[in-house]
């Protein structure tokens, strides 16, 4: 299933694994307390004491980037999981059973797809209010249609194959056919969509937090750091650059993974 000879996939895997390693270490240890202020060491340039320099409160930017990337990744992981789980259920059932429920849900799906996703996220956040967990919920709900559509299409395609007819003939129940016989065959297609989902989630979280609707201060997130950094773009460019680089690396890693898995690597 994983083509390790595929250079795109390998590059994506290496970037993603390195980022995940840094994030995992960051959960337990960072060089400094990400929220510890140091009035004497404000906006220090990158150097041996502070790898990426310090911000306007004298906080260590490297530590904040590591924790911020962790927060962003956590949000992406949770929202993709919600979207994937619900998408599997909705797409699986509609793809397998078809009928008017399928027609209705898919037309609803089309309607949702017609709106720009950023706009929908803003609407959902206006309803749920901001904050880490509401962002997760809003993005998770927003991802359901995309996953449902892919799962539905694949399930409908697999359902027409003889191995499903054969399983029915042998007395295998519908739910077992759907989740045990069919699902393993759609993972390859779904994995690519999951990687892209992560990608979109990272970007969406960054945009929302940048707008001040996501992770709330003083907790770091990559989007929040961009927001804070914009006031000091000329005096402390390393602030925005470090947060931006972390976002780019995360997105690049997932994008290459998706492309290496057979997707087109785009949202």
């Amino acid at each position, binding site marked *: 299933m994983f083509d390790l000879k595929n250079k795109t996939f390998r590059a994506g895997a290496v970037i993603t694994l390195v980022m995940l390693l840094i994030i995992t270490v960051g959960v337990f240890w960072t060089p400094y307390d990400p929220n510890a202020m140091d009035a004497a060491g404000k906006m220090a340039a990158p150097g041996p004491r502070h790898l990426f320099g310090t911000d306007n409160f004298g906080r260590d930017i490297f530590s904040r980037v590591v924790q911020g990337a962790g927060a962003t990744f956590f949000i992406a992981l949770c929202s993709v999981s919600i979207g994937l789980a619900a998408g599997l259920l909705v797409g699986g059932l509609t793809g397998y059973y078809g009928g008017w429920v399928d027609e209705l849900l898919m037309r609803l799906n089309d309607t949702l797809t017609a709106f720009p996703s950023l706009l929908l996220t803003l609407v959902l956040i206006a309803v749920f209010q901001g904050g880490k967990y509401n962002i997760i919920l809003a993005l998770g709900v927003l991802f359901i249609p995309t996953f449902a559509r892919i799962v539905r299409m694949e399930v409908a395609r697999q359902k027409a194959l003889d191995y499903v007819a*054969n*399983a029915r003939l*042998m007395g295998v129940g519908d739910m077992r056919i759907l989740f045990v016989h069919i699902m393993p065959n759609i993972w390859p297609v779904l994995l690519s969509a999951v990687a892209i989902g992560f990608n979109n989630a990272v970007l969406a979280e960054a945009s929302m937090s940048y707008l001040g609707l996501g992770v709330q201060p003083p907790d770091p997130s990559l989007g929040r750091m961009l927001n804070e950094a914009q006031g000091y773009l000329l005096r402390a460019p390393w602030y925005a650059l470090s947060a931006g680089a972390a976002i780019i690396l995360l997105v690049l890693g997932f994008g290459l993974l998706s492309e290496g898995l057979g997707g087109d690597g785009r949202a």
Partner: protein
Amino acid sequence: MEQSEHVLEVEGLGVVYQDRGLFGKKTSFQALTDVSFHVNKGEILGLVGESGCGKSTLSKAILGMLDTAIVTGEVRHLTKRPQMVFQDPAGSLNPAKTVGWILEEPLRVYGKYDAAERKRRVLDMLERVGLSKSYAGRKPGELSGGQKQRVSIAAALIRRPRFIIADEPVSALDVTIQAQILDLLWDLRHDLDLSYLFISHDLNVVYSICDRVMVMEKGRIIEQGSVDEVYDHPKEDYTKRLLSAVQY
């Protein structure tokens, strides 16, 4: 004519496919009309006809696999759990599972045997279809066409049915492999006390394996009898045309 036991009786079977779009007009197609026949215990009954004449519809109707079509008439199964061997073994075997898993699944669903007994039956069946035990760990994608068809025959037979519908079971295979699979089906009939409804468009294949044969044209059975009878003295023009097109 001697009185023999039947495994399947079909009487006045008709199938109409209906299709209706969301707002479209209803269209219907009569796929089978007044089909009546029986399969004797222990025999191989052939069904020939050109593609699109309703052969596959008949096999699906017999096994209750037509969800949306209107089926009339009567199908009486006189054996338990009739099974089917499909034309394309690449599509009839789940590509994500191993051969062992595929063969074990019908037994798992049946639920009467423990894991050790299921494994014993799987290995026994692999041997019967001429595959070594090592095939249990492989996936269908790693097998050749002939090996795949052996696996799908094994899967159909694992719960020991007495009646099998083989829908073009050798059409997707090379000629040399065809002969091997036909031999296997022939041998299994005696070993496992089977009866077949053998569907094919290939009159040579039907001649080589079947006891009796039915000829289907446009959803009707127009002629049936012993293979020698039908091949040597065809009554219908359609049968004569079919026969004149092949060397056998």
